[in-house]
């Protein structure tokens, strides 16, 4: 990415679940840390999310999933990004995601998955560190 440009992050709630507390808290924390945050809102499909990420030229997509749909949604997003030649966009996430599944998602190229209780500074540090390179 260009040096000096603000980091642009898309935060999305994919799937049918509306529990958006975590997504909104993280969105605000990233914004307060000086990042440009685009909050995609509720009930977004993987295609809508990937299109929004490309249109908005973001550096990373953060997905919040509490419903158990992570096993379907993350792989779909990774595939769509690849198809559209946008695999350089970092995908990370958070929610109710068991450790075993987190390992599987990492093997698909998904970045860090943050579980309930994560300090938002840990997420900010992670993005700063990972988007540096």
């Amino acid at each position: 990415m260009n040096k000096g440009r603000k980091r642009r992050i898309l935060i999305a709630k994919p799937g049918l679940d509306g529990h958006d507390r975590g997504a909104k808290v993280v969105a605000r924390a990233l914004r307060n840390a000086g990042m440009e945050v685009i909050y995609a809102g509720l009930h977004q499909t993987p295609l809508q999310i990937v299109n929004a990420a490309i249109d908005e030229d973001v550096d990373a997509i953060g997905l919040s999933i509490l419903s158990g749909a992570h096993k379907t949604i993350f792989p779909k997003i990774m595939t769509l990004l690849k198809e559209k030649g946008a695999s350089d966009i970092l995908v990370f996430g958070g929610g109710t995601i068991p450790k075993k599944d987190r390992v599987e998602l990492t093997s698909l190229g998904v970045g860090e998955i943050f579980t309930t209780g994560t300090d938002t500074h840990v997420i900010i540090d992670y993005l700063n560190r990972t988007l540096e390179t």
Partner: protein
Amino acid sequence: MNNQKGTETIENREKGSTNDDSFKNLSGFKIKALYGPEDISQPGREADLGLPGEYPFTRGIHKTMYRQRPWTIRQLGSLDSPSKANERIRQLLQMGANGISLCLDMPTIMGRDSDDPLAEGEVGSCGGVAIDSIEDMRNLLEGIPIDEISINFVSNSQSSVILSMFVAVAEERGVPLEKLTGTMQNDILKEYQAQKSYYFPPRPSMRLTIDTLSFCNKHLPRFNPISISGYHLASAGATPVQELAFTLANGFTYVEEGIKAGLSVDSFAPRLSFFFKVHNDFFENIAKYRAARRIWAKTIRERFEAKDRRSCLFRVHTQTSGSSLTAHQAENNIIRVTIQALSAVLGGTQSLHTNAFDEALSIPTPRSEKLALRTQQIIARESGVINTIDPLAGSYYVEALTNQMEAECYKYFKEIEDLGGVISAIEKGYYAKIIADSAFSYQREIEKGERIVVGLNEFFEEEETDIELREADPEFEREKVSDLVALKENRDQALVKACLNEIGEVCQGSDNIIPYLIKAVKSYVTLGEIIGVMKEIFGEYREDSIY
């Protein structure tokens, strides 16, 4: 992984211990070191306390409270498939639960059938049951005595359809409708404010809620048609006092709407029930219940001129706080749930769900679920807290907090009124803003070490707990979809079409929609098809994202 601030936190605490600001409850009230008679001796306040079972019911809605009958142990009993959920309900009843709450899977919650493309990967999710058609309702309730066991349907935007399926199955089984007991959550207002499982704009949604209320009023006199829920507001971030104020304001709105629909307040207010969350602050929670009973009773009598004492009763189901559970050192959650459950009991709840300790990680296992249920049985049978009624009454602290909760509530009522009422306040983003602010402040307090979560920002351990988790059934979705496709192929298609056309017409008029929905579900019209037609007429709601 996540929190490495143990020592820093302890230092902050020590510095803060001389500072009064560090003793605050979750609502942000500063708590004094000592409370005494001067904190509760305001003129005229004696009448606010009264006796249990007497207006204004601060000390409880029943004269005998738990001495005659302890609270109802009402555990969530769902699982992906209707027949597996049925099995689980039977197990819970066998273990000593005396009521059941049923939650729905995400597609059903969002009004979509299991074969909807947007349902992919979410059929049977969140430990909820997938209900597409009357066939699912039959399987779910098979062999369950629905005239004896009260079932609480955790159903909101789709309540009119779920109630219709429930009524249709009762009719098939020859159970008289007036014997049906249970609850439909059917609280649409909090969906816009917090849980976000809405389809239509607020006003048509309110019409469906009131159609359901009116139908129950006429035909299901023992059934609670709305459970006005603070739980979700609190889960989204509302503080306890905000939960209290917003829930009550929603309750008053349903009363107004019921009256507008031509019902007399005393004909339906006795069947309105409530649903609270119990969070970590022990005494604050108890004060919340006591204030709720008093404000509800006073408002129903004074503003709505109810004559029936039962209209004034704030009857409440409680669930311990899912959002207070930690993924780290998950066993610590057993203790959190126990303390919260005790607080709900001392607050005078009518029924209680205790969360399983592994819920921050996955849906509960049979083992963790049983432990949650046993927690309630130990409180009821071993702790002795049920021996006397409202044991904390007269505590300077609890009474002062109760009064303070009540006073703060009226400030929120005023703000909502100034915005033109609850629906207007929703449309103006009032709740979204307040709840997002509260959620963010709570997170900040934890991150700054001002609020301690044991095992998370103090006493943190790098090692993650390795506990047994329940796995979702990977085959279920495929089976459910293929069953549904077969059901849709083998029905009277002309009848289905006629029912859907009729529903569309009724949506545009003002007839009560429930009889038309009952006819439709009996003709195997599915939930997703009905909601689809309603969306064409009512439109879909999208909120502005405020964070």
